[in-house]
């Protein structure tokens, strides 16, 4: 973990209320998708955690939804502006544990770490099956990029305006052997009911983001864990839903 300064390269709305932020700065310590950064925003006391979607070559992308003061302030950043962030935080996906043919499942804005993960697994020849779910067609983003990955891709929309009608679970079509999942809590829980094993990106309200405050504790089968430091990626067997 370092406290780095990041310069905004691009900050564009990619779906209603959802932004893609491209920043330049130190990404040298990032190890794998699922890690996150904790952003200092002027005028707010606590930092705001955001998953790292893409990284490499001194550039990172973040995809965020505007839900309150902090994300609203983020949405006003312009190219050339800069901010401090602690980077990287948390443990990402345990890539070596992921078997070939695993399902990578993402829901809504939270889907993004899946993209980078899919690329890595593809490059390792592990041929993952990607499932992404959205409410409706207009909310889908990064669809082109996902398609261009060349891996098996299923899109689900709640209203059926694109791909399978329904949730990602409907798109799973039965019980999966191994899943890697990012998305809202209820979605992850539903996926877990249809998978034998896997890794899940748990959400939590955080203060420090680096393990000092016990603000983000989740009770697991191996006792209380800090989502920020011991996660945010947890093994299915450890999670108590």
């Amino acid at each position: 973990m370092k406290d780095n300064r990041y310069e905004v390269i691009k900050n564009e709305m990619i779906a209603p209320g959802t932004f893609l932020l491209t920043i330049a700065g130190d990404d040298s310590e990032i190890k794998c998708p699922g890690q996150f950064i904790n952003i200092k925003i002027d005028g707010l006391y606590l930092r705001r955690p955001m998953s790292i979607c893409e990284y490499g070559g001194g550039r990172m992308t973040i995809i965020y939804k505007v839900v309150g003061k902090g994300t609203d302030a983020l949405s006003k950043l312009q190219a050339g502006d800069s901010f401090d962030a602690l980077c990287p935080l948390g443990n990402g996906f345990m890539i070596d544990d992921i078997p070939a043919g695993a399902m990578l499942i993402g829901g809504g804005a939270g889907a993004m770490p899946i993209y980078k993960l899919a690329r890595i697994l593809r490059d390792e020849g592990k041929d993952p099956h990607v499932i992404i779910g959205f409410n409706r067609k207009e909310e889908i983003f990064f669809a082109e990029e996902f398609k261009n990955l060349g891996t098996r891709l299923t899109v689900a929309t709640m209203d059926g305006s694109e791909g399978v009608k329904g949730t990602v679970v409907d798109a799973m079509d039965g019980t999966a052997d191994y899943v890697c999942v990012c998305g809202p809590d209820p979605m992850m829980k539903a996926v877990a009911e249809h998978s034998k094993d896997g890794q899940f990106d748990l959400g939590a309200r955080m203060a420090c983001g680096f393990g000092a405050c016990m603000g983000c504790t989740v009770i697991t089968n191996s006792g209380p864990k800090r989502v920020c430091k011991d996660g945010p990626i947890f093994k299915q067997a450890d999670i108590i839903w």
Partner: protein
Amino acid sequence: MSNMIDTSVTLSGIKLDNPIIPASGTFGFGKEFAQLYDLNILGSISFKGTTVEARDGNKTPRVADCQAGMLNSVGLQNPGLEAVVAEEIPQLAELCSKPLIANISGFSVEEFVTCAKAMDSSDPVGIIEVNVSCPNVHAGGANFGTDAGQTAEITKAVKAVTSKPVYIKLTPNVTDIASIAKACEDAGADGISLINTLLGMRIDIKRRQPVLANRMGGYSGPGIFPVAVRMVSQVREAVDIPIIGMGGISSAEDVIEMMMAGATAVQIGAANLVDPWICKTIIEELPLLMEKLGIEKLSDIVGIV
């Protein structure tokens, strides 16, 4: 920087190289910070509040932002006295060879006593800091620390089982902090730590529910600094034992101000969470600021205002 600058302070016979101590609950048992800087630069460390039994803490969300600080209702999550003494303290002592401050909590006088006894026999512990901001389960759940009599009772009970200096950590959610501090002094306390968090609440107006699962929580950070300075000054006038001052400190200037109000040493809490290097930065800036203000010996300014 002049060679004559002296940042050392003494708490009940224990000399600290400088007055900077991370506050309990915001520094864990030091592991995360030891990866960022050498913990031996610190005056001391007050580690995570320890209770007899292991505790999972309160429901989440249990932290929240509020403009000038944060709310927490962590609820004393800790691995329990046995694990702390057997594992955490020895590990922390590896990382930091200074006399440590053991922050203990309890839900009955007996629990405080049990913790104090164990800390008394743990070598790395230099000072026992008794957090009385806990509900007394034997007295209808009212907070120990809001009652001078109960606070004094805990003080006496703890003093009886340890020869180490005992500092009572007071809650600011009281009408008359000075009289509670005085009761501690009269009961034999070696020092006073203050302030713990102010009780606060925030509401998520979209979801129409409190931001904390626990409804209310402890408010800390810069927004409580004026209250903390006031209480340290009031307690300074009421007692002769040393004070460890805290509440919103985020800069070397804040440290000087808290010491001028009456603190012999200070603790840094929430600031560690937003800037994990803050204690190191303050320790580096202190001598420069002292020079600028014409302070040669830091301990000279304690309570001068």
